[in-house]
């Protein structure tokens, strides 16, 4: 049995880019294999949105009045889309920290792989596999309880594109955090934070009734921007209206684009640099 020798990385920029892309796609493929290995994960992914829809839609929904009238469950679904979008911070953080603490990351680092491929692969796996899957499940759950997009296919597609873009951007935050904590147990401690973070917004209740200082936080929370954008684009009740709106709620689509751009501009270089840094 003769083993081939290890190929040296290409020296041309284009060749390197091709390698980086190929490496990244292998890591995306890993996510698919994992799902195949653990169908239980898929079932859990199906149950979680179901619980959210029942809990918020029927338990809270029985007592909450939507400003301007309308069905609470129609009001709620954009909020749940937003919340599920932000769970990717934790998912990617956990995945990255697990690789870092188990030594898998060390093996990647000791291999002739493109340096940027690992963070891009980790985030890409979420954006290309988990993200669309979670969104599809959530949409299914929404349709079941009576949620509908009312403004046509183009507007709905725009909303889904915004959700995935923001998910991609916040995944980079998770990737960076995972590379920094380098320990899955520490990363695990952060997971419950996603709930209060997404609740401090307009996702579940209107911000109008909150105390002023809390309201400012909620209105500038990116969860609120994406929720407002979705309500707008899907034509769901509770879409922001009025003259005294905070800027992100008056221009929710622009706000989501800006949030995404800022997060990407900060956390892509940070993550890649942290992965490349040697010394520990």
């Amino acid at each position, binding site marked *: *049995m003769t083993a081939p020798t290890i190929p040296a990385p290409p020296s041309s920029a284009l060749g390197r880019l091709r390698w980086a892309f*190929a490496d990244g796609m292998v890591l995306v493929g890993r996510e698919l294999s994992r799902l195949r290995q653990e169908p239980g994960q898929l079932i859990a992914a199906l149950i979680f949105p179901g619980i959210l829809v029942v809990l918020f839609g029927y338990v809270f929904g029985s007592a909450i009045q939507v400003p301007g009238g309308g069905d609470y469950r129609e009001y709620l679904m954009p909020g749940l889309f937003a919340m599920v979008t932000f769970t990717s911070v934790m998912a990617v953080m956990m995945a990255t920290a697990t690789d870092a603490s*188990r030594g898998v990351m060390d093996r990647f680092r000791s*291999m002739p792989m493109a340096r940027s491929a690992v963070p891009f692969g980790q985030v890409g796996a979420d954006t290309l596999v988990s993200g669309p899957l979670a969104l599809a499940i959530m949409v299914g759950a929404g349709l079941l309880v009576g949620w509908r997009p009312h403004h046509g296919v183009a507007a709905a597609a725009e909303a889904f594109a915004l959700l995935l873009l923001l998910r991609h951007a916040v995944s980079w935050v998770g990737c960076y955090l995972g590379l920094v904590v380098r320990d899955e147990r520490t990363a695990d401690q952060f997971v419950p934070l996603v709930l209060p973070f997404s609740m401090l917004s307009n996702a579940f209740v209107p911000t109008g009734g909150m105390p002023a200082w809390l309201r400012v936080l909620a209105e500038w929370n990116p969860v609120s921007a994406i929720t407002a954008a979705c309500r707008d684009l899907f034509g769901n009740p509770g879409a922001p209206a009025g003259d005294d709106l905070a800027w992100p709620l008056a221009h929710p689509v622009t706000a989501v684009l800006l949030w995404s751009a800022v997060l990407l501009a900060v956390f892509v270089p940070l993550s890649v640099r942290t992965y490349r840094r*040697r010394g520990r």
Partner: protein
Amino acid sequence: MDEPIVVAEGLRKRFGATEALRGLDLAVPAGTVCGVLGPNGAGKTTLIRILATLVDPDAGRARIAGHDVVRDADRVRARIGLAGQYAAVDEKLTGRGNLRMFGRLYHLPRREAHRRADELLERYGLAEAADRQVSGYSGGMRRRLDLITCLLLRPAVLFLDEPTTGLDPRSRGEIWDSIRELVAEGTTVLLTTQYLDEADQLADDIAVVDHGRVIATGTPDALKARLGDRLDVVLQDPAQLGRAASVLAGLTGGEPSVGSEGARLGVSLAGGTVRLADVVRELDRAGIAAADVSLRRPTLDEVFLSLTGRPTGAAADEPAPVKEAVR
């Protein structure tokens, strides 16, 4: 190329207040197995991490096959394999899935990666478990998978960081066999270990590391010869230990130590020799009844103890004050 395939010169690395390496030098000729031996905290893992391009040294240089590990890291990575005490495989994938993934990450074409994975699983006895998730593997199986992941492509140098720590004797034997097969194919191996028998079994040369420096090098036999042969005497009556000790001291010029069993005395001959017949006669003349008298080579454990002042299992003391480390 006459230069040794692994060269480390004056490597230094500090982590906060701890100086892991304090000017470590090492050279490993191609095609040999070098055992880096040292207690916990001696700097073995840091050395491997620097050579495998995971950590940059604070000072000093290292080259693998002529390529600098800092400046030419990509070229180094194309020539090395790394396996360690923490099996670096994806627990959620199957054994086959892991090998296929890493094969693809080594840029093997898909079909070639699959073929190589099957071949290795078959050859290293993991074919049956190949389609089970790694999280269900035993420690030995995991370690073996970790090791063969490095063999998807033949590395010029394989770094093994305590490859059998925590394994049962049978799994250790299997890992040793795998390592020997690799060496037979021409791979150079640098392995760290706390187990002297492991170094004894596998290594052509041993570098004893303590407090971040190499304190002795040589073949296992040369290291043992440095300490000289040892004379062991087992008494029938432990009460005669004191008198027997003075007899042995007179004969050898060494200082006998009492063994753990209570009736056993051992003394190093420190390069000198002694005839067993003389020992028996002198003991007899002193009225001491010996159950057993033997001459033997020292074990590596004894070599290690004499070099570092403590047994291999013990952790290194707190690093000495910094001023000592400054050259």
